[in-house]
C-alpha cells in the first residue's frame, strides 16, 4: 500500500491534460457529479479527475509461466502419492539385504502410507508414476526450450552465494541483497529436486523392468543398488519438502499465490 501511494505522488507531477473520451471510460467510477461534458467546459475539476485517470501502478512480475505452474502442482500431488504409496511398498520388504534372513530396517507406520496394502499401494504407484514422469518431461522440455531455466538452474557462479543465504536463514545472518527471481540457495534446492526426480524415475524404471532395461540396471550397479538409489532419491525429496514448505509459509501469501497465478505482486528484487 505504501508503495502504491508513493507511485501516485510521483505521477501527479506529470499529470497529463484529461481528454473527454478516456474519461468517459476510466472515470466512470468517479460518480455522477463528474460528467465528460463538464470537463470540457470547465477546467476547475481537472485536479480530482487527474488523480482518477492516473491510477496507482503496482510493481509485479510474471514469475511462473503456465507450464511451470502446471508441472509444479502435478509434481506436488504425484510426489505425495509416490512417497506415501512407496513407503507402503517398502513396508512389504523393509530391507535392502537378502530375504533369508530378513533384516527389517525400519517399521513405517501404516498411517503414513497410502493404498491399504501392497497391491493397493502398487496401483497408486503405477498410476502416478505416469503423471510424475509426464510432468517431469514437460517441465524439463519447457525449461530448455523457453530458456526459462536460466532463472533457476544452479551454476558454478552461484556456489559463492549459497553460504551467505544459508547463514541468513539458519543463523540469523544479514540478508544478502535479492539478485533475481531466485537466490543461490533456492537455485541449489530446486536444481537438486530435478536430480532427485531424474534419479527416482530412472531407478524406478530399473525396479519395474530390470530385464527389459537391463542396460539401465547395469548403469545403476544392478537391481539391488537401484533399489537403494530409488530410496535415496525419495530421501532427497523428503529433505527438500519440509524446508520448501517452511519457506513458503515464511514468505507469505503473495509469494505462494504467484505459484497459482504466475504473477508476483511487489517482488523483493529489482530490475
Amino acid at each position, binding site marked *: 500500500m505504501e508503495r502504491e501511494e508513493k507511485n501516485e505522488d510521483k505521477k501527479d507531477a506529470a499529470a497529463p491534460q484529461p481528454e473527454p473520451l478516456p474519461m468517459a471510460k476510466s472515470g466512470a467510477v468517479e460518480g455522477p457529479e463528474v460528467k465528460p461534458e463538464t470537463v470540457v467546459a470547465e477546467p476547475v475539476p481537472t485536479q480530482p479527475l487527474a488523480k482518477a485517470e492516473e491510477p496507482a501502478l503496482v510493481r509485479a512480475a510474471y514469475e511462473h509461466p503456465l507450464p511451470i505452474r502446471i508441472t509444479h*502442482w*502435478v509434481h506436488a500431488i504425484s510426489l505425495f502419492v509416490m512417497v506415501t504409496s512407496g513407503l507402503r511398498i517398502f513396508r512389504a520388504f523393509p530391507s535392502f539385504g537378502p530375504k533369508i534372513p530378513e533384516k527389517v530396517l525400519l517399521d513405517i507406520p501404516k498411517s503414513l502410507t497410502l493404498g491399504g496394502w501392497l*497391491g493397493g499401494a502398487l496401483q*497408486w504407484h*503405477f498410476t*502416478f508414476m505416469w503423471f510424475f514422469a509426464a510432468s517431469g518431461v514437460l517441465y524439463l522440455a519447457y525449461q530448455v526450450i523457453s530458456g526459462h531455466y536460466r532463472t533457476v538452474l544452479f551454476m558454478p557462479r552461484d556456489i559463492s552465494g549459497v553460504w551467505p543465504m544459508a547463514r541468513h536463514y539458519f543463523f540469523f545472518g544479514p540478508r544478502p541483497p535479492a539478485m533475481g527471481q531466485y537466490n543461490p540457495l533456492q537455485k541449489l534446492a530446486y536444481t537438486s529436486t530435478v536430480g532427485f526426480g531424474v534419479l527416482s524415475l530412472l531407478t524406478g524404471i530399473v525396479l519395474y523392468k530390470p530385464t*527389459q532395461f537391463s542396460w539401465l540396471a547395469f548403469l545403476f550397479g544392478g*537391481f539391488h543398488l537401484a533399489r537403494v538409489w530409488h530410496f535415496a532419491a525419495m530421501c532427497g525429496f523428503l529433505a527438500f519438502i519440509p524446508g520448501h514448505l517452511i519457506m513458503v509459509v515464511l514468505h507469505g501469501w503473495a509469494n505462494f499465490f504467484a505459484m497459482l497465478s504466475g504473477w508476483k505482486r511487489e517482488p523483493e528484487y529489482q530490475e
Partner: protein
Amino acid sequence: MITRLEDKDLKRQSRRQLLKLAPVAALGVFAFPKVSDRLVAAGVRFSDWASGGLFRPQHLAQMFSDSDVVPFAKFPYNGYDVLDPEIDLEKWTLTVEGDVQHPGGYTLEQIQALPKISQNTRHVCVEGWDVVGSFGGSRISDFLTLVGANTGARFLEIECADDYYESIDMASAQHLQSLLCYEMYGQPLDRGHGAPLRLQMPTKLGYKQAKYLDSIRVTNVLKPGKTGYWEDQGYSWFGGL
C-alpha cells in the same frame, strides 16, 4: 522481469492465469475412494498395456554363474495357502485344454522327454526381494508345439492343485527362458516349491510362477475376474520384468 501495471489489471491477469491452472484440479477426483479405486486399477491396466509393448521376446533375462546362486536353504518357500496340496505324484497328469490339436492329460515323463533347459536366473518378488536360483525344465514353447497349441491365441490359463490360478500372455509364455519347471538345484521339485511341476519365467514376477500345475488352457478370452489369484485383488496382470 518487473512490469508496472494497474492494480485492477494485475488482479485481472492473475485471475485469468489462475483459471488456466484449473484443469490440474481434476486430479482431485483421486481424493474420492470410490472413484480412485477404479482410476488406479485403470492405471495398472494402462501400465500393463505399456509393459506388453516394452516386452522384447528375444531379450534374455540375466543369467548367473553357479557361484551367484543362493544356497537352496535361502530360497524362500512362498505359498498363498498351503505348501503341500497333497498331489498324488504317481497319478498326476497335466491337463491340456482349449485351442490345441491334442488335448488331454500329459505325464511328467512326456514333459521331461522334451529338451531340458537348466538356467540360473533371478526370481523377483513383487514385495521387493529377489533370489538367484537354479532351475531346470522344459520350454513352455516346446510343450505348446507338442500339444499342437494355436500359438496365435493370446493367453494361457493355468489352474493349480492348491486352487491358485494364473494367466499369462502368449508372447511371454513362448519366451526362450519360460519353463515348465520340474527341477530346482538339480533335484526334482520338492512339494513346497510346487511339485511336480511349476512355471518358471525369469521375465515375470514371482506371483506369476504358479506351482502345483493342474491344467493349461490355450484361449483368446480370459474370464473377467478370474485372471489370476493376486491379479484379481489388484496386482498387475502382466507382472513383467
